[in-house]
């Protein structure tokens, strides 16, 4: 690999508190050699080929903490290859994959297979999670210790919540002993049973079973109460309501934990469901505009640590049904950054805060050396034309599944190049 020189970029690396105009040198091993304002034309040999970015942005490769990949078992929805290509086009270079595949990632032998597939087929960094309970049944714990040794970085039941409080306390105790990270999907499954959208005026109008925000709040309160006595690495995958923001803000004064939010809940509200748009059937559901703005505030005041895509590829057949029958979730990994930038362009969130929530914060929670451009690290990064306008078109999406929640939306800001370990794997 030849050495690469990038100049005149706006560089933001929140891990290293870097926000300046400068350059980036990637060495011949694909590692960061130098970065920042000290990298300029004057200290680069004149014979070298230099890429002038003319004010475009360089961000560390995005770390997406919540991604569903169809492999193994649902390759028709998404496989590692299609996921990689979709991710790269959105500047995502590391993903945390969910364990609800077929078979479910709940034992050591399947992890070996997964790691091999990930290594052979994927161009991006795959960080697999395993389930908290065997077969996602919510009754018996998986082997956190042994699974971690195989490379599992966190544990979650994905779309399911640990409903049983006694089991949850035991999971937390094990996580404490083994230093394991728990990712909880916070939803009281009895309160949300058969629910499809936020419980309120829209659910009443559309005649759809509602999911009250209390279903989320109750699990969060329960878990945080347990956490006061049992210290462990605990992260709430996604929150969706004002009530959740408030309780988390309050409890963060007392106890250490983190929480995430889906870009869908930050950008859309229940009114977007309109006339039964099944692509907006999501979990957690889109809630009111008041909830949405409260989530934005939560991101600004650091109540919320992470933004995720909650990328859930579903083939169109699963969405071309009545709302009750349609699958839940939307594809979103390739629009994660651009949609997040909407919050910057409309003045609601600082650019640094967004980049932090997409790169250094998730990496810190996961304890992985990603989401930064520290000298000597893998040069995983993306180049972004932050003002470039574009329209989300279903047929132009790269992911194998086209169930985007923002079809035809006008966005501003597009990734033009993405590099993993110094190799350019995406170019617009």
């Amino acid at each position: 690999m030849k050495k690469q020189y990038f100049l005149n970029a706006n560089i933001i690396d929140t891990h290293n508190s870097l926000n300046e105009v400068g350059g980036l040198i990637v060495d011949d091993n694909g590692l960061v050699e130098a970065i920042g304002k000290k990298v300029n034309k004057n200290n680069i040999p004149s014979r070298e080929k230099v890429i002038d970015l003319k004010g475009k942005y360089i961000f560390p490769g995005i770390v997406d903490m919540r991604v569903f990949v169809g492999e193994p078992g649902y390759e028709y929805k998404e496989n590692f290859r299609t996921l990689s290509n979709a991710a790269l086009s959105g500047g995502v270079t590391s993903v945390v994959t969910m364990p609800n595949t077929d078979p479910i990632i709940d034992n050591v032998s399947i992890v070996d297979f997964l790691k091999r597939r990930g290594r052979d087929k994927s161009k991006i960094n795959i960080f697999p999670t395993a389930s908290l309970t065997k077969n996602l049944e919510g009754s018996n714990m998986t082997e956190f210790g042994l699974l971690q040794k195989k490379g599992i970085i966190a544990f979650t039941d994905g779309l399911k919540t640990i409903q049983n409080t006694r089991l949850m306390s035991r999971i937390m105790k094990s996580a404490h002993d083994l230093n394991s990270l728990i990712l909880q999907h916070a939803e009281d499954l009895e309160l949300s049973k058969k629910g499809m959208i936020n419980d309120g005026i829209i659910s009443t109008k559309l005649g759809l079973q509602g999911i009250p925000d209390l279903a989320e709040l109750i699990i969060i309160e329960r878990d945080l109460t347990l956490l006061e006595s049992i210290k462990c690495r605990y992260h709430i995958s996604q929150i969706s309501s004002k009530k959740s923001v408030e309780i988390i803000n309050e409890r963060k004064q007392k106890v250490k934990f983190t929480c995430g939010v889906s870009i869908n809940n930050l950008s859309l509200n229940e009114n977007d469901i309109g006339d039964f748009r099944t692509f907006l059937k999501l979990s957690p559901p889109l809630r009111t505009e008041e909830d949405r703005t409260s989530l934005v505030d939560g991101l600004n005041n650091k109540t919320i640590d992470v933004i995720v895509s909650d990328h859930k590829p579903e083939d169109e057949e699963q969405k071309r049904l009545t709302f009750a029958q349609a699958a839940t979730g939307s594809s979103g990994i390739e629009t994660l950054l651009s949609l997040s930038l909407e919050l910057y362009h409309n003045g609601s969130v600082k650019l640094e805060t967004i980049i932090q929530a997409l790169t250094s914060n998730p990496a810190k929670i996961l304890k992985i050396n990603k989401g930064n451009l520290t000298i000597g690290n893998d040069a995983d990064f993306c180049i972004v034309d932050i003002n470039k306008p574009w329209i989300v078109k279903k047929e132009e999406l790269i992911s194998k599944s086209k169930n985007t929640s923002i079809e035809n939306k006008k966005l501003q800001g597009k990734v033009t190049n993405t590099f993993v370990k110094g190799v350019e794997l995406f170019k617009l």
Partner: protein
Amino acid sequence: MAIKSNKAVKISQKHLLGIQDLSISDVNFILNEAKQFIKLNKSKNKKLDTLKGKTQINLFFEPSTRTQSSFELAGKRLGADVMSMNIVNSAIKKGETLIDTAMTLNAMHPDLIVIRHQDSGACNLLSQKVNCSVINAGDGRREHPTQALLDALTIIEKKEKIQGLKIAICGDILHSRVARSNIYLLTMLGAEVNIISPTNLMPEDIEKFGVNKFSDMKKGLKDCDIVMMLRLQNERMTSSFLSSNREYYEYYGLTPDKLTYAKDDALIMHPGPMNRGIEIDTNLADDINRSVIREQVELGVAVRMACLKIFCT
């Protein structure tokens, strides 16, 4: 018998999916059209050729007696060829999706599809996939527009107006499409609507639709002109909403005692089928001086004839 139609007035919608989509003039247009059929339905020769040569498909995914037969009869009286699909024996039970069914039926060039489905929004989905007009005969808990229209017509026939009347809708509001359609229609036509239901069966934010809500039936019935009872939809209840039917009857069943809180000339309505002794006292249901339940069924045919005629492409 020739029926005059007012060609100058047009309906604003292609489909009849819900009252929510209709304007006041749409509603008045349908109700005026329906009035013309009331007499016809009482006469000896009930057959017209208004929809001669037209094909009407009734697609019922849920069991229904009165609505299905009412639509079938309405179509036949207007001279349409009516086909009622028996879903139990159809490919849908073999896993065909609603959209595929729609495509199949659409290829047969129907002029009208009447659909009842257990999922809210099913008629909206169907209407996007077929060329002809779709009439909603009830979708999940969302809307049942022809029921609300026939209820309105019944009230107008008996009380000569709706504007200014106080109307109570009592019972299982949460699962009721009849309640939702009636709330939209009766408030649109200027009635004051009281919703009476145990809180467990009250939908979230219902007061935002411009109604008053009560969990005390006697308070809710006070000075009402119309008492509309709803059926307790046990089949839609996924978990325990109520302790027992007898307790429900005690607090929310319409009894002669509770009816005294309403106006002396208050009328009783029910969309049927009734659970006698659960939501309504059996004698009250049959009281010809108070109950207009039979008239509702009768006018139902007239309203559906009007809807078929107006929406037929």
